[in-house]
């Protein structure tokens, strides 16, 4: 036993000495959601290119659970040697402190931010025979007939739930919220007209909107999206405060050495400049941050502002997980 321990210590010391040649073995990226979801897809597209820059494979490990907080908690407690990193997102690093009072990490303090990877814009959509077609009419209808309307979301803490909480707090409308397990079933009932409207990430919605099975009211970004050029922004529609995007960003555990952070941030930067990566992210309706927007410093600022923004909204919506 003792010998094993000694060997372990020696190995660790040897590693510390050779930190400048990071990485010398595969890097594990914890994605706190099941494979195949938007965050996972973005992580896979980005890491595929990062692996080439780093010269070592970045292996995705999906550790799902509790709105992503299980995986992020584990990753935050990993050895800060750069071999365990994670893909956080708006929920785990923005909304989580308001939703989970027993959270074992602090989004702003427990991490060494690497950089923003990609965001996906949020849309307000309705069933196809909804009485209103533009944002003004929609908000009007929401305020007068709110009690009759049902909003579909993917469960407390999901992107669709969080963003619609913002809509509720902005309009002060009293619509009924219906939770589904995931965006798929929620979308199904929206297409079938069982519920009236919802907010969700663009990636899930584009084909349905194009096929006319649901109706897009507005997109919550400053500019219109190239995938849906006909959908006006919330700014144009007269609700400029409704600006949200589901962002995904890479973090390392806190106390990760600056060299490692630099190597990872550099690899991410390079990946986001790659044409193929850009193309694939655009196909998903994703937005790629500009050069300043993807630095570790910018990410730290974003996390702080997001936590400050969501906490009061979610507390007001009464959505607090125990």
């Amino acid at each position, binding site marked *: 036993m003792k010998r094993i321990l000694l060997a372990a210590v020696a*190995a660790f010391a040897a*590693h510390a000495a050779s930190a400048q040649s990071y990485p010398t073995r595969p890097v594990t990226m914890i994605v706190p959601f099941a494979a195949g979801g938007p965050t996972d897809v973005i992580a896979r597209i980005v890491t595929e290119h990062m692996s080439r820059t780093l010269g070592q*494979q970045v*292996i995705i490990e999906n550790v799902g659970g509790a709105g992503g907080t299980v995986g992020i908690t584990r990753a935050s407690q990993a050895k800060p040697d750069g071999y365990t990193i994670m893909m956080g997102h708006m929920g785990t690093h923005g909304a989580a402190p308001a939703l989970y009072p027993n959270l074992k990490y602090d989004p702003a303090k427990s991490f060494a931010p690497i950089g923003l990877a990609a965001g996906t814009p949020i849309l307000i959509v309705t069933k196809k025979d909804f009485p209103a077609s533009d944002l003004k009419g929609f908000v009007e209808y929401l305020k007068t007939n709110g009690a009759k309307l049902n909003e579909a979301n993917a469960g407390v803490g999901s992107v669709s739930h969080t963003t619609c909480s913002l809509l509720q707090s902005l309009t002060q409308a009293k619509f009924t919220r219906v939770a589904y397990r995931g965006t798929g079933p929620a979308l199904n009932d929206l297409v079938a007209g069982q519920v009236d409207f919802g907010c969700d990430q663009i990636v899930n919605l584009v084909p349905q909107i194009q096929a006319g099975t649901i109706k897009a009211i507005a997109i919550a970004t400053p500019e219109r999206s190239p995938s849906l050029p006909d959908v006006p922004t919330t700014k144009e529609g007269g609700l400029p405060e409704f600006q949200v995007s589901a962002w995904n960003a890479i973090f390392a555990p806190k106390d990760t050495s600056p060299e490692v952070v630099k190597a990872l941030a550099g690899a991410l930067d390079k990946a986001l400049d790659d044409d193929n990566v850009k193309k694939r992210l655009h196909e998903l309706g994703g937005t790629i941050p500009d050069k300043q927007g993807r630095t570790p410093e910018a990410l730290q600022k974003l996390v702080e502002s997001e936590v400050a923004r969501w906490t009061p909204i979610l507390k007001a919506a009464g959505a607090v997980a125990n």
Partner: protein
Amino acid sequence: MAAEVGKSPAPSGIVKGPQAVVGGLALVALALFALWLVSDLSQGTLRSMGPAMLPRWLAIGVGICGAVLAASGFMREGHPIEPFTLRGPGMVVVGIVFFAVTIRGFDLGPIRIPQLGMCGAGPLAMFIGGFATRDVRWRDLLILALALTAACVMLFGDMLNLPIPLYPQWFSDLYPASFNNDTRMRVTAGILVVIAALVYFLVPGSKDPSINVVVDDTPGVQR
């Protein structure tokens, strides 16, 4: 070793169906436990059900079923409790828990259990679990454990590329730096097979004649 516990008492006196009585009481206990667990959650209304509504009514249903079952055990002649042993479940549970805590290390309060990875946790868990039966033969078990782990390293690590810890980092670092990940995996699997082979050839098998590995040649049974 295997303590025979819970030997069925003969159905005498007021308890006519001990199995039903014990089963029923277990259900009642489970129901009470669940009721206690959801006691601080709100039940809500039909229009907007609270989190406790369904679990509470389910628990009451379970409790009623349990009570009726237990009552039937007093009224009707029923089954005795089947005898059970502790050795089997005990060793299997220890084996599985051992695997769980050593596969990637585990924090147990102040104690940190080291990560052994699949190459350590797998065969050790199998070896411990193997003692669940009385006719354990540690030599065969050891050979199988090592060989199977080698196969698992190739299958899960090399072929399927599962993100499962295979061995502790310090072990991986023992290899020359020029070895890439796949080579390390393959060499490790090779080492395990060599050890298994060494045990096979060097450790004499038991002389007990009853251990012929396949006991299925009983005449008349094979169709």
